[in-house]
């Protein structure tokens, strides 16, 4: 039982990260019906920038929490800038182009960002300096670490903040209006370009935080870490219903748990015919299953005819 509980905790932590990244996919999709495949690279950039800052500060006598915070404070604006530039340079000129054009552009941006990171940080992985003491808490035989708790709490807070932003502020109203009908929203006096830019910036900020979380959790950051994470978060967004904020959160958490349980038990269930190396496959099995049985996702109201 404690093993089962442990897998749930593992899955919950991983799922929180997926949820935050999935929010970025779903927001952008909701507003301009673009699947921004470069979103995963923003997570990577966030982790790399944060690690560089944290690595530089690790020798100082600052408390660990402040050091990590400094890393986040450096990573978030950096990613926001990249997110903004991405939309302004690559996607805006293509806004009225056929749907395939921005999609391919997104893949191109993803490759470019990866290689820029490769040039800047080299191929060897960056290690998270040993500054956070390992704190373990025991719940019914399972272990939850301080970092895991911080990750889960941060992601809950961020989801709450985002919900408030979208449903309780003027800007949120503008975002929702734009997502329903950009032309009409424009006629009502909403500066659509600004709203779209803002959406990208918020998504990139979330990605940066997710990058710091996942980097701190595993203690390692790598120039190619973003692509698989991004694909999984995208699957999570589709699972929840792409374009739907609550769906992205639910999808992320569910996917994390499915993955942890899948990797943990598939070997025993299939008598070791399938092993834990199928861990990464579960996200995509879920994606396929959703597309076949419920194309609009768990909470999605619109059928995905636009993708």
């Amino acid at each position: 039982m404690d093993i089962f509980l442990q897998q749930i905790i593992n899955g919950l932590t991983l799922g929180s990260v997926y949820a935050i990244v999935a929010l970025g996919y779903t927001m952008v999709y909701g507003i301009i019906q673009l699947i921004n495949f470069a979103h995963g690279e923003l997570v990577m950039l966030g982790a790399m920038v944060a690690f560089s800052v944290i690595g530089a500060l690790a020798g100082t006598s600052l408390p660990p929490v402040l050091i990590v915070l400094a890393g986040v404070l450096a990573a978030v604006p950096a990613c926001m800038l990249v997110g903004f530039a991405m939309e302004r340079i690559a996607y805006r000129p293509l806004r009225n182009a056929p749907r395939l054009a921005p999609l391919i552009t997104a893949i191109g941006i993803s490759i470019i960002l990866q290689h820029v990171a490769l040039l800047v940080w080299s191929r060897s992985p960056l290690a998270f300096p040993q500054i956070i003491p390992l704190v373990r808490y025991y719940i019914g035989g399972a272990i939850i670490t301080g970092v895991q708790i911080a990750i889960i709490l941060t992601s809950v807070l961020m989801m709450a903040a985002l919900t408030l932003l979208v449903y309780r502020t003027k800007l949120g109203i503008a975002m929702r209006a734009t997502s329903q009908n950009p032309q009409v929203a424009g006629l009502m006096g909403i500066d659509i370009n600004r709203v779209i830019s803002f959406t990208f910036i918020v998504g990139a900020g979330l990605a940066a935080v997710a990058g710091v979380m996942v980097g701190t959790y595993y203690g390692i950051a790598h120039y190619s870490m973003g692509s698989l994470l991004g694909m999984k978060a995208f699957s999570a967004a589709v699972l929840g219903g792409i374009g739907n904020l609550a769906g992205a959160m639910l999808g992320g958490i569910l996917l994390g748990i499915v993955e942890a349980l899948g990797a943990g038990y598939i070997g025993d269930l299939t008598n070791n015919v399938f092993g834990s190396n199928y861990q990464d496959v579960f996200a995509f099995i879920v994606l396929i299953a959703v597309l076949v049985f419920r194309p609009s996702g768990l909470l999605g109201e619109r059928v995905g005819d636009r993708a």
Partner: protein
Amino acid sequence: MQRTQLSLAVLAAVAAFTLAGCGEEKKPAPVVAAPPAAPAPVVVKLGHVGPLTGGIAHLGKDNENGARLAVDEANAKGLKLGGKSVKLELLTEDDQADPKVGTTVAQKLVDAKVAGVVGHLNSGVTIPASSIYKQAGIPMISGSATNPQLTEQGFNNVFRVVGRDDQQGPAIASYLQSEVKPKTVAVIDDATAYGEGLANEVEKTLKAAGVKVLPREKGSDKTADFKAILTKIKGKKPDAVFYGGMDATGGPLLKQGRELGIKAVFAFGDGACTDKMKELAGDAAEGLLCSQAGLPVQAANKQFLDAYKAKFKIDPILYAPFTYDAANLLIEAMKKADSADPAKYLPELAKSSYDGASGHIEFDAKGDRKDAEMTIFTMKGGKIEPIAIIKGGKTTKFEDFIKAAAPAAPAAPAAEAPKAAAEPAKPAEPAKK
């Protein structure tokens, strides 16, 4: 693994060439005191190749120094072949740890009509270069290339004086089995040819010794999340965990294992037998076990260590004893055949039985060293330190091995533990600390 642009490569090659030139100017001058024979001595050229620029340039230079020491010693003693006195000349080339450059400089040495080659350093470079030497019929001995494929090509001119990667699995497994005495062992690999191959060897050896091995778990060479796998393993309560993979994935694996409260001994192959494990896994790295092909440098014989230090004013780093032996093997074979003609001395080389800086050397039919040593390391205070030598299936404590090798040897203090072996070429580290 190559990101060199052409222009960079050209620049580097030019720089290396100039550097190598400078090195040669300085070195032979003070030491060479060959008895001036009446007629001008015949010059016999030997080649040495290793990376002299890039991330592992220090290891390349170390290899070169080993070979140079052997050549200079032979010159100082005076060498006669076929009745004529001979002066050996060492031509050194920089392969930049790059297979493409490696074949180019190999051809260059062949064109310069070298009689034999010591090198290269990296397996990935040595293998393509070996076919060029093969075509020219020039004997080559690598002091550091551990990939089995090198001597599996069926080339009669290719030798190595270090162990092979596939002797490593059995070594670490037998150490685990005899020292840790586990009842159950979990084996994980990264699904690469290297990791899976190593893990298979470990599993085979452990099973043969009657140890229970859990069903194989697999990550990938990019996996960062081992929590699900480790949680599952924790439920089966193994006494030891072996991981076949590199340090970039091994570090997080170890860290996450300790976070989950797994108390088992963690063991790794040479890919994760680096000081970087400390950086990646933090305090969790303490006490890990890992293996490398070959001997740590401080286990080389005292005579060599002293001569090296006296000549180059620094301690040898890693493979210098092996390149020293490699060069000496070529020279000895020439002496026995009384000729520097590769075709004549090659048979003598294959029959070598020689006591060198790294111990007794004989070759098997493939050109591999018989009974090559493997070294087991442990992480102690953030550095990997040798604890045992495994040779011919027998385990010797490292201190005992040192004592046996050189009776008068002082306890080698905190000598630098070997870094990444030849195969996992260490990428340049961005400035840190």
